[in-house]
């Protein structure tokens, strides 16, 4: 499988993409492309679009590979997505998953996808970036897929488990090694997978044999060619991240595929979670749609409310509070509520809470109050003695602010000034 992938990439790189239908086995190619015109219509500018010429005649043979057919539209759509915004590229990831899941033909479609993107990388810088972004997105998606459906690892998952995250590079090595061994014969796992896939189709035996034939064809590609190409591609492949494969999807598909074939209207909504996830990935999210284009970004909010909150602002806040659930769920939340109301001592505990106005006053202002006595009190005598006692008392008082202490001293100053006569009389 990997060998085939490499070959395809190389071919594509050399501009062989237009020859897709000559390169591929004719029947399959036609079948696939019978769908191409329908879905690829939006992305006309793409080189792949050229291959969508006149293929409706071979419809009758399509039953055998209807599964292939089914997947096709989805992939195409994904490609379209890639082109337009490059945000939600999940399909490539999907492709890789599917390819591992068995179908060699599937693998081919995948390789067509990838090289094309890598071509863009070469052409334009931005193209490369978008591809990388894609790949990055794809990786993320892989992990989510895995999270959501941990239990669903159907038949082919053993291999994926062994190599959970295999780099493209090492896969390449692996593939070449494998390829040389099984030249001529098919990997038994592949055969098993083919028969499993075929069993989902109506015409079981025919489908199986055709699939196997297809696989053998791929095996028959000359070894030499492969080797020569392989070295060149090394770094391209290294650039491409072939994600790990969670398949689970391969068994979800056929049912919807059949539905698609039956009514021909397009896929119907799948109600399962897998179906829904796929649907989301397939479609472009409406949240990234075009905008009204009335405003230009970066406008400044004019700040009219220099008067503080108006009545309307308060009312809005009130309405929001009324509308939402503000009741506490536990004691701590109630305490948070109280803290906000200012009813509770704040954490972390601070001894000086509520003493904000004194915070900037150093302690010596409180304690050393002698300097306030200097100017107008007598230097010695009973008044001086009394005042020294007063400041000693004040120095020890923690209830008063420095300002209040000063005022206290000032009061005595005034008092003694008023009693100046009396004092003089008594002392003199």
């Amino acid at each position: 499988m990997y060998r085939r992938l490499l070959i395809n990439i190389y071919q594509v790189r050399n501009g062989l993409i237009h020859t897709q239908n000559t390169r591929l086995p004719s029947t399959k190619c036609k079948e696939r492309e019978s769908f191409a015109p329908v879905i690829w219509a939006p992305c006309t500018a793409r080189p792949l679009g050229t291959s969508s010429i006149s293929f409706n005649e071979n419809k009758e043979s399509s039953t055998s590979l209807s599964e292939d057919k089914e997947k096709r539209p989805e992939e195409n759509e994904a490609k379209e997505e890639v082109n337009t915004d490059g945000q939600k590229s999940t399909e490539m990831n999907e492709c890789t998953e599917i390819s591992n899941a068995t179908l060699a033909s599937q693998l081919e479609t995948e390789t067509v996808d990838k090289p094309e993107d890598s071509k863009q990388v070469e052409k334009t810088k931005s193209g490369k970036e978008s591809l990388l972004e894609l790949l990055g997105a794809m990786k993320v998606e892989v992990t989510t897929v895995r999270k959501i459906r941990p239990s669903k690892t159907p038949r082919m998952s053993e291999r994926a488990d062994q190599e959970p995250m295999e780099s493209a590079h090492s896969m390449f090595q692996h593939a070449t090694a494998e390829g040389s061994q099984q030249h001529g014969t098919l990997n038994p796992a592949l055969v098993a997978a083919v028969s499993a896939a075929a069993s989902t189709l109506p015409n079981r035996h025919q489908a199986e044999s055709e699939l196997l034939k297809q696989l053998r064809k791929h095996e028959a590609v000359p070894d030499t060619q492969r080797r020569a190409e392989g070295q060149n591609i090394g770094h391209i492949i290294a650039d491409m991240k072939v994600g790990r494969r969670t398949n689970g999807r391969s068994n979800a598909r056929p049912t919807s595929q059949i539905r698609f074939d039956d009514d021909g209207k397009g896929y119907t909504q799948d109600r399962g979670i897998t179906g829904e996830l796929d649907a989301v990935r397939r479609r472009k999210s409406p949240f990234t749609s075009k905008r009204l284009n009335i405003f230009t970004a970066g406008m400044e909010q004019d700040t009219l409310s220099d008067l503080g909150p108006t009545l309307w602002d308060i009312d809005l806040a009130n309405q929001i509070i009324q509308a939402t659930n503000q009741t506490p769920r536990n004691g701590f939340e109630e305490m948070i509520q109280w803290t906000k109301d200012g009813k509770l001592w704040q954490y972390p505990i601070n001894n000086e809470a509520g003493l904000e106005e004194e915070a900037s006053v150093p302690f010596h202002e409180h304690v050393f109050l002698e300097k306030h006595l200097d100017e107008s009190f007598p230097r010695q005598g009973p008044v001086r003695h009394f005042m020294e006692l007063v400041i000693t008392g004040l120095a020890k008082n923690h209830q008063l602010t420095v300002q209040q202490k000063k005022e206290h001293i000032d009061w005595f100053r005034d008092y003694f000034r008023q009693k100046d006569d009396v004092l003089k009389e008594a002392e003199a």
Partner: protein
Amino acid sequence: MASSCSQALKQHVCKSSTILRVHLQKSWPKRSFVLNSAADQQPAVSSPEEIVIPKKKTWSKEAVLQALASTVSRDPTASDYRLQDDPYLTPKTSSEFKLFSLSQESGKNAAKYFINTYPKYFQKDYAQPHIPCLMPETLEAQIEEVSEAALIERIHMRKVKAAVDLYDQLQQAGTPVSLDVTNQLLDLICFYGDSDPAQENVPEQRNEETEDVQDEPQTKKGRASKASDQLKAAWKENNNAERIFALLSEPNTHSYSALIRGMVKYGAYSKAFSTYTDLLNNRLKADVNTFNALITAAPEVKEKYNEKWELIVDLLKELAEQKIKPNLLTLNGVLKALRRCGTLGKSQAFPVLSEMKALSIDPSLASYNHLLGIFYKPGAPFLGQTDILQEVMNEVSGKSFTPQDPDDAQFFITAVRICLDTKDIEQAYSVHELLGVGENWRLLGNDLQQNIYYARFFSLLCMMENIDVMLKWYRDLVPSVYYPSSNIMRDLLQALDTDNRLDLIPQIWKDIKQLGHANRQKLVEDLLTLMAREKQDQEVQESFAECALDIKKMYDTGDRGKVIMSWTATSLSDVISVLLAAQRRQDAWEILKLFKTHNRVPSEELLNKFLTCVTESGEVNHAVELVQISAGFCLPETPKLIQRVQQEFQLSEQQKNILSDLEIQTFNSD
């Protein structure tokens, strides 16, 4: 990044792939693709960001408590925190719950009322540091003289009439009032629609919770609020606001804004628009609040959908012209208006949201709520729109929202309504999961909305989930956060029925009793029918019989003046069949007598069944009595019953006489 990864891969090929996976998963979400070749030279494992350890960390005052609060998770066996004051009073039914929360609220209000009415008794300030919110508010104006300060004081106290009077006095005295103060006065008048505000001590929940939460609550609420708006004074022609506004020599943006908002609030929509034209004529700029008000008014002034939308677009363009940045409320207002624009809404909603993002305004839950409202009209069929909810959920999942818009609280009930309508249990789970993220639970809204939310969630569970999962949710949520209504209990019974777990019925009956639904006739009858329908195991049948007798008690005792349920023929026969199946003939016999006392007529089938049962036990007296009862009701079946009794029992002479008498009677009556 990809190239660096490839470098990494080359270096680490030999290492185990798990390490790589860890590395890749870590580095990819960042998606910084601008790495140059220099970056490629670096070792694969990106150097850890330098951690700057701050010298001092200032914690907010709630940080410690928040950390502690986050350690407490909900205990499904306990009742809500606010109900835990007194275990005796812990409510068990929804009505008790209503009573409890109402009385709690009104207690608070009463205390506040007393403190504010008699402030002189509450002057002692024990608290150190001082706690302002515990002190009485001043409700009387302190400044008596006619001055601007007095006007400001009255504005702050929200005394509309007094402020207007004072303003007039100032005008008469010729004292100029500054424009700012006048604007504040205008704000006040417009806000209250030129009448004094009602007393604010309104109870928290004045919504009447009705039994059928299945109804569309939004429309109901909408109607209710509209009605109350009409009761409220509408905008009067030439009211004080307009008068004072006319007196202004040079009204500024703020004055216009106040007037327009007042007009919109009190329903004078077209007047608001003409005022806006005035504003433009005076070469003034409007502010964003004015536009918000006008956008709300836009759907009211135009008839056709496209006219409405054009008006809104015009307004938005003027916003942009005047270089005013719209805020979240503007765009939410647009979305809300789009809900009334029919199909136009569907095409325009997403561009509006994109616009929002382009302006780097994060949509709030209200935005998404309006979006859902646009795409899922209640009662309308859902054609291929099921994934809009999916899209919305993709956008919002895992995010924690802060309340920014009064409509935010509608999101969850809307989302769960859609899940219920589309029968999408997976989405319902993801909605419920979102509810658990961060502070999102606050956005579920008040008790009524919570009730609606859980009712919908539950009926969806009843419909879609298997009974084990369903019961897990039931045990988790009932009754600690949700008191199911009797309709939901009936859904639950149906779920039990579909999953064939009728053996749980006695258990559910206990819950029903506790939830106060034991006197809901319909529910009880459903329960009885389910129990009577099939014959169960001996053990289960025994518990059914107990349950049936318990139900009988509910019929007997209508305690505390509650409406007593009345026996119907079906409920009586159901009870009897349950009892008979459990071989409790004595109890069944007593129930049979109730037919007579309640003037109900037993069915023939029941009597036959009863007779079969009596035959098994061989009680001749009962058999005869049964026939007598049957004859008493003049049932057409009586002759057959008589025949059966005569054949199947060894009758005494006297009994034979009775039977033949009855036979003649029935014959005659025929």
